[in-house]
């Protein structure tokens, strides 16, 4: 098994890594590079806890070989904060109580980041669709949806139950 030399951008930093061809992306990030913010859950693309951004688009890193990221840009949850300053989505998740055990949170936030870049004012349905590949077994999703909508519209004071009225599509 010949090792693969790969070069890619990881959270804005150029990385050169020698990987085994049978190493998955999530394993390289966690085991070789020590970035344990990306979680390993089901390993089959069902739970979304291993979500990373590949050239800005969210993907399951358990379903990619590490060798495939050669020449690409990867963003993990560690790449969102600016020093000690959290990303607005991270702050909103904390403020809205959208984090319980936290296992799904990195994936939720990365899927949400991609959504807000494409659609800065999403409807509730668009939020729920965007996170439909990310499973949460703690929160029942409501607070996660609220946290994402609140990031999109920081002035909105809506809470559970009002979300629909506040964010109906035009």
């Amino acid at each position, binding site marked *: *098994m*010949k090792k*693969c030399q790969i070069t890619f951008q990881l959270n804005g930093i150029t990385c050169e890594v020698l990987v085994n*061809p*049978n*190493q*998955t992306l999530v394993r390289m990030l966690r085991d070789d590079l020590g970035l344990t913010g990306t979680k390993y859950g089901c*390993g*089959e*693309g*069902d739970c*979304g806890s291993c*979500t990373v951004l*590949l050239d800005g*688009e*969210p*993907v*399951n890193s*358990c*379903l*990619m*070989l590490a*060798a*495939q990221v*050669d020449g690409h840009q990867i963003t993990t949850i560690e790449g969102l904060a600016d020093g000690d300053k959290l990303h607005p989505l991270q702050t909103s998740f904390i403020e809205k109580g959208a984090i319980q055990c936290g296992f799904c949170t990195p994936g939720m936030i990365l*899927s949400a980041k991609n959504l807000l870049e494409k659609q800065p004012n999403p409807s509730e349905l668009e939020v729920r*669709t*965007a996170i*439909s*590949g*990310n499973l949460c077994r703690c929160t029942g999703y409501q607070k996660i949806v609220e946290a994402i909508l609140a990031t999109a519209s920081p002035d909105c004071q809506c809470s559970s139950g009002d979300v629909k009225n506040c964010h109906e599509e035009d």
Partner: protein
Amino acid sequence: MLLPKFDYNAPSDLEEACQIMANYGDQAKLLAGGTDLLIALQKKSIAPAQIVALDRIEDLEGGWGDEDGFFLGSRTTAAEIAESDYGPAGQALAQAASQIGSPLIRNLATIGGNLATAMPAADMAPPLLALQASIVLQKYGSRREVAISDFFVAPGEQVMSAEEIMSLIFIPELPAGSGGAFEKLGVRKALERSIISVAAVISLNDDGKTINQARIALGAVAPTPMLAVNAAAGLCGKKATAKNFTEAGKTAAQEAQPRGLRTSALYSRLMVETLTVRALNRAFDAASQ
């Protein structure tokens, strides 16, 4: 979980990829989106000596059209297809792509992989059957075109030989006044393998009411995705009415060959009828626009 050991090949063009496949044959597996392959590797249900990744081959990505129809590279992702405008008939394909897996899966999964894995429930198969697509297969020194209706053989099996690579999917141009739609039945909206799927494509005469051509394709109700030939033939020359659509739905339900694996055969047939009527109604609306 550790994957079996293999060597990794990332050819930069199709000719190089064909050469590699000619050398290794069935010892090699093609890697397109990886959403099925990586799971098979993890489960150790396959253990190829070589993986041949197709993601550096630009010719396999994206779509383009000419007067004959539309070509799609086999590595075009479900997300790209879901966001594309293929016109009133081709929208059946975009609708199917938009319901595969999850946003995360759709960013990786490819049309070529969806067809090559040949699952009875593959969502992009019914619309492509209804659109009379053909598939271009290449190997070192030769290429052939296979009608999608001749492509699937059995669950997980299609006509590709070990050296062949799917390069393109061709969708022929349909006459003006054509429309298509896709319907999927699942117990949830995301990460769901279709219990039943139906695609319908119809072409109307100039009067905007009489059906000139129709094709209805069914997923997950037979060992392979299938055309409901009799249901479609029964619509030709008839008016697009609720009564005729219901009749077509009943015929499609008879043509389905459900084996009662994921739901009872009776329920499958009943839902084939319902979904066929819905798909025909929406295809008619699309054709009328």
